[in-house]
C-alpha cells in the first residue's frame, strides 16, 4: 500500500479496504461486486513501472530511448515474441505503449487491436496503457478520422481495465523532443498519474529544457499555491516542494495557523493573503520578487462552495463563489499578463472541477465558476504562449478530502464508485498532475483542462 493512502486526510475508504482482504476478494468475485484496487502511487526511488514496458507501433524517433531514460524496461513485440515469453508469462507487463504517430487511416487501427488484445491480459495491476497519436489537423480526412478513433479506444478501454490500470491518449501536434517525451512518460507511466484515466492530452512540439536532475524538475522555480492551508492545496504545496520548487504557501489570514504548519513542513514560506483583494496579484508578484527574485509557477487553488438549487439561489450564495473561484483568477492572471509577473517558462495552473464539465445538481454557481476557468485557460493560453508561459486547468473528480468526509455516507459511497477506478482520488493525485504541468518538460501543454477523475462517468 502506498504512503499516500495512509496519510490521506480524507474519509477512509473502508469498502475498498474490505474488498482487498482475502475474504473480500473471494466474496466480491463470486457475487460480482466492484473491487476497487489499491492504486500504485509515486514514491521517490520507486521504479517507473511495476514491470517491463511493451512498446508497439512506430514512427517517433527516440521514443524507446526516452522511455528507457524515464526508467522503463522497454521490450518490443518482436523481442518479447522472440524470447518465447508471449503469451502468457509470469512476467507481468507494467505498461503497454503504442506509437500511433504514423497512423494513416482507419485500417491502421487494426494493428492497435492486435497489439492490445494480445498483451492486455499480461498487464499488471496499476499498469498503464498509453497510445501516442497525432492531433487531427485537416490534412487528410481519413487520417483525422483514424486519429480521433484513438480517443474512442482509450475511453472505452479505460472502462474495461481492472486492478487500477489506466488508459490514456497523448495527441501530438508536431514532433516533441526526446526530453518532452521522457517528461510525459515520467508522469503518465508513474504512480503520479494514478487517478488520471481515459484522458486525451494534447501536446504541442515546443522546445523544452531537460531538468538537471529529473528527481527535482522544479529546482530553482518559485511557486505560489493559493488555498494552501489544507486539503488539495496543501498537497500541491508539498508535491511542488518535493519536486524542488521554493513554495510560497498562500491562504486567507484566518487559515494562517494551518498554513504555517504546511509552510514549515515543506521549507516554504507562509503568505496570508485574500486572493479576492484587487491588490492580491500585485502583492504576490512583489513579494515573490523581493523574497525570491521572481515568480515561475502560480497555482490557483483557492475555492469555495455555496451549494443551492437555482430556484433558491440568492446573491450571497452566488456572488462569493464566482468572485473567489473565477473573478479573482481572471483578475490575477490578467495582472500577470499586464505586468509580465511571471518569468519566461512560467506556469499557471488553475483548479477547475469535473462539475465544470458535467455539471452537478445544486452547483450552478460552482459549476459556472469552474467551467469559466476552463474557458479562461483556453482563452489566455495564446497571449501567454508568446512569453513561454503555459496556462492549464486541472479538473479533479471526486477527491477524498475533509470536505467530502462531511457528505452523507450514501452519497459519498455512490460518488466514490462511479468512475473507472471505482474509488475516490486523493489530494496527492491532483497535486501530482499540477506538479507535472509545472515541469519544464510540460511546455507543450497549454490551454488545456486535465481531468484527474479516475475516468468519472460524469462529464465525458
Amino acid at each position, binding site marked *: 500500500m502506498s504512503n499516500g493512502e495512509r496519510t490521506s486526510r480524507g474519509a477512509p475508504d473502508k469498502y475498498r479496504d474490505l474488498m482487498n482482504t482475502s475474504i473480500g476478494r473471494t466474496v466480491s468475485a463470486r457475487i460480482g461486486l466492484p473491487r476497487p484496487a489499491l492504486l500504485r502511487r509515486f514514491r521517490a526511488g520507486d521504479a517507473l513501472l511495476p514491470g517491463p514496458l511493451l512498446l508497439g507501433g512506430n514512427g517517433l524517433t527516440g521514443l524507446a530511448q526516452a522511455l528507457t531514460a524515464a526508467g522503463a524496461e522497454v521490450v518490443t513485440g518482436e523481442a518479447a515474441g522472440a524470447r518465447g515469453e508471449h503469451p502468457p508469462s509470469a512476467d507481468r507487463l507494467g505498461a503497454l505503449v503504442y506509437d500511433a504517430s504514423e497512423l494513416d487511416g482507419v485500417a491502421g487501427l487494426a494493428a492497435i487491436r492486435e497489439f492490445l488484445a494480445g498483451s492486455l491480459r499480461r498487464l499488471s495491476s496499476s499498469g498503464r496503457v498509453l497510445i501516442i497519436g497525432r492531433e487531427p489537423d485537416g490534412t487528410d480526412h481519413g487520417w483525422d478520422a483514424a486519429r480521433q478513433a484513438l480517443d474512442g479506444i482509450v475511453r472505452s478501454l479505460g472502462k474495461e481495465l481492472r486492478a487500477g490500470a489506466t488508459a490514456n491518449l497523448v495527441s501530438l501536434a508536431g514532433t516533441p523532443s526526446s526530453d518532452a517525451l521522457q517528461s510525459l512518460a515520467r508522469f503518465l507511466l508513474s504512480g503520479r498519474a494514478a487517478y488520471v484515466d481515459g484522458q486525451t492530452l494534447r501536446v504541442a512540439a515546443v522546445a523544452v529544457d531537460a531538468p538537471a536532475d529529473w528527481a527535482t524538475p522544479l529546482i530553482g522555480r518559485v511557486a505560489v499555491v493559493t488555498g494552501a492551508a489544507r486539503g488539495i492545496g496543501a498537497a500541491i504545496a508539498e508535491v511542488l516542494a518535493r519536486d524542488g520548487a*521554493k513554495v510560497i*504557501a498562500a491562504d486567507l*489570514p*484566518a*487559515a*494562517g*495557523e494551518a*498554513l*504555517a*504548519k504546511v*509552510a*514549515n513542513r515543506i*521549507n*516554504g*514560506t*507562509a*503568505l*496570508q*493573503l*485574500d486572493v479576492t*483583494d484587487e491588490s492580491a496579484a500585485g502583492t504576490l508578484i512583489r513579494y515573490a520578487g*523581493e*523574497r*525570491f*527574485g521572481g515568480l515561475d509557477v502560480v497555482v490557483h487553488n483557492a475555492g469555495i462552495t455555496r451549494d443551492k438549487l437555482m430556484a433558491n439561489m440568492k446573491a450571497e450564495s452566488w456572488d462569493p463563489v464566482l468572485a473567489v473561484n473565477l473573478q479573482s483568477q481572471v483578475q490575477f492572471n490578467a495582472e500577470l499578463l499586464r505586468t509580465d509577473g511571471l518569468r519566461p517558462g512560467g506556469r499557471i495552473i488553475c483548479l477547475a472541477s469535473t462539475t465544470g464539465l458535467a455539471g452537478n445538481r445544486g452547483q450552478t454557481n460552482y459549476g459556472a465558476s469552474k467551467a469559466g476557468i476552463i474557458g479562461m485557460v483556453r482563452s489566455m493560453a495564446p497571449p501567454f504562449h508568446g512569453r513561454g508561459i503555459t496556462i492549464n486547468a486541472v479538473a479533479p473528480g471526486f477527491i477524498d478530502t475533509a470536505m467530502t468526509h462531511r457528505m452523507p455516507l450514501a452519497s459519498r459511497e455512490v460518488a466514490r464508485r462511479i468512475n473507472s477506478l471505482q474509488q475516490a482520488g486523493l489530494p496527492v493525485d491532483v497535486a501530482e498532475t499540477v506538479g507535472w504541468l509545472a515541469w519544464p518538460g510540460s511546455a507543450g501543454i497549454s490551454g488545456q483542462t486535465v481531468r484527474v477523475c479516475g475516468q468519472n462517468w460524469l462529464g465525458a
Partner: protein
Amino acid sequence: MPTREAVVIGGNRIPFARANGRYALASNQDMLTATLDGLVARFGLQGERLGEVVAGAVLKHSQDFNLTRESVLGSALAPTTPAYDIQQACGTSLESVILVANKIAVGQADSGIAAGVDTVSDAPIAVSEGLRTALLAANRARNLPARLKALASIRPSYLAPATPSNSELRTGLSMGEHQAVTTREWAITRQQQDELAAASHQNLAAAYERGFFDDLVTPFLGLTRDNNLRPDSTVERLAELKPVYGRGESEPTMTAGNSTPLTDGAAAVLLGTREWAAERRLPILARFVDAETAAVDYVHGDRKADGLLMAPVYAVPRLLARNGLTLQDFDFYEIHEAFAATVLATLAAWQDPDFSRDRLGLAAPLGGIDRSRLNVTGSSLATGHPFAATGARIVATLAKLLHDKGSGRGLISICAAGGQGVVAIIEAA
C-alpha cells in the same frame, strides 16, 4: 568596538485572547512555540540556526525555567539555535529586542528572535507557604523520624493553594489601584480615558479591516483576531461602565473599558544585520536606534511623580537627550496602554512645567504630541496585554508602520511592574 546596525525584519504574534477564554488550556510553551513557528513560516527560516532566541514570561511555572530554549527545540528552527529567558514584567519582550539588537550591534550575533509570552489562564499555582516549608523540611530531614516530624507539622489549612496575584509585592496594591492614585493626582478625567479607549478599539479594528495584520499575526487555536477587540466601541458605550479601580475615592474614573484586561498570548520579532537579511532576501522594515530604561520609587516615592507606571516619563527625556531629539521629532508614538490613564498621565507629565523642572531637570517641558500619531493601529486596551508579549507586538507593529510609510521615526514607551519603564526608538530603514 565598531557597532553595526540591527534591523527589524518582521514579526509574528498569535491573536491575543482574554484570560480563561480561547487559550485557557494552552501553556506558555504552546503559545511561544506556535508564535516562533509562525515567524519561521513567514520568513522561511526552517532549519535555520539563528544567533539566539531571547524571550520570557512574567507568569511562569518553575518547570518552565528554560521556556525559550524548550520552545525553540519544539519549533521548526534549527535545534542548534541557543536561547535564554528574561523577565522585566510588561517590558520583557521590548527588553528582549534591546538585548538581541545590542548583541547584533556589537557583532556577537547576526540574527536573533526577541519574544515574549504570557498566560493568565494557565498560571502557576503554588502550594501554601506552610506546606512548602514543611515539605522542604521533610526533604532536608536525614532520617524517618525527622521526616515524619516535619510532615506532622502540616495543617489542613496548608492544603489550600496559593494563587498568584498581579499585586505589587511591596505595596500589596494591584496595578489598577496604583494607577488610580496616579490618575487622580494628574487629574485625568473619565472622558479623556474613554476617548482614548474608544480610539484604540477603532484603530485596531480599522487596521484589521485593511489587512494590516495579515503579515503580523498568525491565528492560533482557531482564534483569528484579538478577541478583546470591540470594533463598535464608542465613548458613549464606555461611559456606561462602572468604575473598578479607586472605588474608595470620591469620583473614580477607571473602568474595565479603559483598563487592559488580563490576556493570554505571545509575540516575536525577527532581527538581524542588513547583510544577514539581504543574504536571505528578507525584508528590512526598520532599524533599531536606541533604548533606555528607568525606574521610580513607587513604594515610598511621591504620589504624583513616582506612580508605579510613570517610569517611562523619566526614560524618554534621557533617551531624547542622548539622541539629540525632541518629543515632536516622531512620526509614530506607541505608548503601551496599560490603562488609558497611564498614557494620559504620561503625556500630561511631559507637558507639566513644574514636574519637568523639578523631576526631569528640564528648563522647559518636553511638550505635547500630535495625538493623531499615537497608537495608530490600536494598542493594549484593544488587543489585550499578555504582559511579556506586548513589547514584541509593539516593535513589529511600529516597524511595519514605518516601512509602509517609507520614512520616519517611532517612539515606544512601555511601563512595567516594579515601577519600571522601557522605551526605545526605531526608524524606517
